């Protein structure tokens, strides 16, 4: 699979950065919101105080006319000279006082005794307070039974408040960003440290070769909980690989060794033919011999390839569409093919089929299994003996037993009889034409069909080869 490589480190860093960003945004938002609320509350209180203080400047005229006058000279100076506050004091609809910068069209909801409002005036944000029924504080000149009240509107610019909130927001955001940077650095360091065992493990794994199969997991990688399944899996994988590699190498070594003999014979035949000038008849005989030698070599190669194919198939590398076949038919074929050999050794071949057995298989493969088992049995049977093949069912599996009454196989050799190039007697090969591959091929084929092959032997009594195949009764 091609494509950009993914980095665990990058992924983790991205996660950290994103979560930090969310955190910073939340912090800025709540900070600004809270500050804005607090500042506005303070401003509102200030507005009320200022409104009341301008309202306090209204008093009755001293002439007893009960007219209301406004002491303009006592108005406190604005805090911000360039953006002064503005105000208006009315009695009912009569305007008693109005600041010079009072905007023209300003209306308020007059129903509530007290109303705050944010507004824009000459391009600036203002906050205004509208107060109904403000009592007149001047009691000295007040007419008796006076219940006059004033309407006061006072507005203050909120520019300073906005600036403060903005500054606080920027400050929080900057602080968050700096913290974010520090967190990323810290996370980088932590992740690198955390992933270090993985790198050590990788470096160790890189040391694995056909000479060195041992995975020495670094101790700090062994302690990492998440890496344990990985190191364990690598260990078992390496074990399996090594086993299979060693098997292959042994097979190759054996094969090369086995090939040497026929090659040596062929070479010696040709060399002795060339040793001196010979007659045409001698050359002809020599070439005939060389051809025979060649055929033996070819036969060995054929069996080696057959074994390799059976084993490859047993490992599921090949898939074939298979038909259901009758097992006893393949046994009959195999026995028919070996009648000649059996007769020459004066051995009786018997087939006993208890029940019909059907199995999904290639008939040639099964026939080859029986031929190999039977050949072996015939080879080790004493003259006049009987080799019996019996077909039956056991525990839902088809069982084929090939039985001889030969000398039997010693217990110590029993586990090795299926090894390739193995012969019970390391040398009795040649006359019998076997290469020590027959049983290995039989085993590989049986296992390819999901079956098992079990040898049982009693010294002096004979050997039973039990083949179990998954099968159904017809």
């Amino acid at each position, binding site marked *: 699979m091609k494509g950009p490589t993914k980095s665990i480190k990058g992924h983790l860093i991205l996660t950290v950065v994103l979560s930090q960003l969310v955190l910073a945004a939340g912090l800025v938002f709540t900070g600004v919101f809270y500050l804005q609320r607090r500042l506005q509350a303070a401003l509102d209180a200030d507005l009320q105080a200022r409104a009341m203080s301008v309202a306090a400047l209204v008093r009755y005229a001293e002439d007893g006319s009960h007219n209301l006058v406004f002491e303009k000279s006592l108005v406190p100076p604005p805090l911000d000279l360039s953006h002064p506050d503005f105000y208006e004091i009315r009695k009912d609809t009569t305007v008693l006082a109005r600041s010079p910068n009072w905007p023209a069209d300003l209306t308020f909801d007059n129903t509530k005794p007290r109303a705050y409002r944010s507004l824009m005036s000459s391009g600036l944000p203002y906050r205004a307070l509208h107060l109904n029924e403000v009592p007149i504080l001047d009691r000295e000149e007040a007419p008796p039974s006076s219940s006059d009240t004033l309407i006061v509107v006072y507005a203050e610019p909120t520019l300073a408040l906005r600036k403060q909130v903005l500054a606080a927001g920027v400050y929080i955001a900057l602080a968050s960003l700096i913290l974010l940077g520090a967190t990323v650095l810290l996370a980088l360091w932590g992740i690198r440290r955390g992933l270090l065992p993985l790198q050590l493990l990788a470096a160790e794994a890189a040391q694995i070769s056909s000479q060195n199969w041992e995975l020495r997991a670094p101790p700090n990688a062994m302690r990492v909980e998440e890496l344990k399944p990985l190191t364990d899996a690598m260990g078992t994988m390496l074990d399996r690989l090594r086993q299979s590699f060693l098997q292959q190498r042994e097979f190759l070594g054996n094969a090369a060794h086995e090939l040497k003999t026929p*090659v*040596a014979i062929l070479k*010696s*035949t040709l*060399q*002795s033919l060339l*040793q001196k000038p010979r007659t045409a008849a001698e050359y002809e005989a020599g070439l005939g011999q060389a051809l025979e030698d060649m055929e033996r070599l070819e036969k060995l190669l054929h069996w080696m390839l057959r074994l390799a194919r059976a084993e490859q198939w047993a490992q599921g590398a090949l898939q074939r569409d298979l038909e259901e076949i009758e097992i006893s038919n393949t046994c009959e074929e195999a026995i028919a093919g070996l009648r000649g050999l059996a007769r020459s050794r004066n051995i009786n071949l018997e087939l006993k089929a208890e029940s019909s057995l059907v199995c999904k298989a290639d008939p040639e493969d099964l026939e080859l299994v029986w031929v190999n088992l039977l050949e072996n049995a015939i080879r080790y049977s004493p003259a006049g003996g009987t080799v019996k093949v019996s077909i039956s069912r056991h525990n839902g599996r088809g069982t084929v037993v090939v039985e001889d009454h030969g000398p039997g196989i010693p217990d110590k050799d029993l586990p090795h009889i299926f090894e390739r190039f193995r012969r019970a*007697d390391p*040398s009795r090969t*040649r006359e019998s034409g076997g290469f020590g591959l027959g049983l290995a091929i039989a085993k590989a084929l049986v296992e390819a069909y999901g079956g098992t092959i079990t040898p049982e032997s009693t010294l002096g009594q004979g050997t039973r080869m039990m083949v179990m195949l998954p099968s159904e009764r017809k």
Partner: protein
Amino acid sequence: MRVLIVEDELRMAENIARSLREGASYAVDIATDGEEGLYMAQSEPYDAVLLDLMLPRLDGLKLLKQLRHSKQHTPVLVLTAREEKESVVALLNAGADDYLTKPFDLGELLARTKALIRRGKGQASPVLTIGNLEINTSNRAVRRAGKNIPLTAMEYRVLEYLAHRPGAIVSKAELLEHLYDYNWEKFSNVIEVYISGLRRKLNDDSERQLIHTLRGQGYMLQ
């Protein structure tokens, strides 16, 4: 010279035998299993044994050890398919004199066999010289005083055997045992025929006899 080949591959054994007969005029016997090989090597006086390792009944290494255990000093050349150092060392330590790995070259086998026999008889050079007689064992050329002397295969066999043991008395029986293989009918008077033929061919003008007859004991080349 008489050589024993212990090899279960009959075809291989026959090829080697043919090469030894044609290329060195040796008498050759073949044993196709270990027990037969050991019996023959112990009962017949061979000048060299060529021994395969993978043998039926008795494997080559055991055969070699038993042979050496029974004080047999016959040179042994081992033919092996194994090239590993350990197995070669084990072979030489068991008493083998030389080894060849299969598949080998028949020419090399022939040369090594000749060298082993030579050494076994206490000779170093492939050219044997007795007085003015010169026998080149590598190409089987015989010269006396620089003159080429053509010999029959059997005459050469007799001369070569005597020349390997100059000054020693070699009985007729010994000659018969070393010049003929197992299957040959052995008649002692045949030896006399070859000896007289050799004398006639080797005689130069000097009238000095090289082959001496010691009545009732045997022959001597001097």
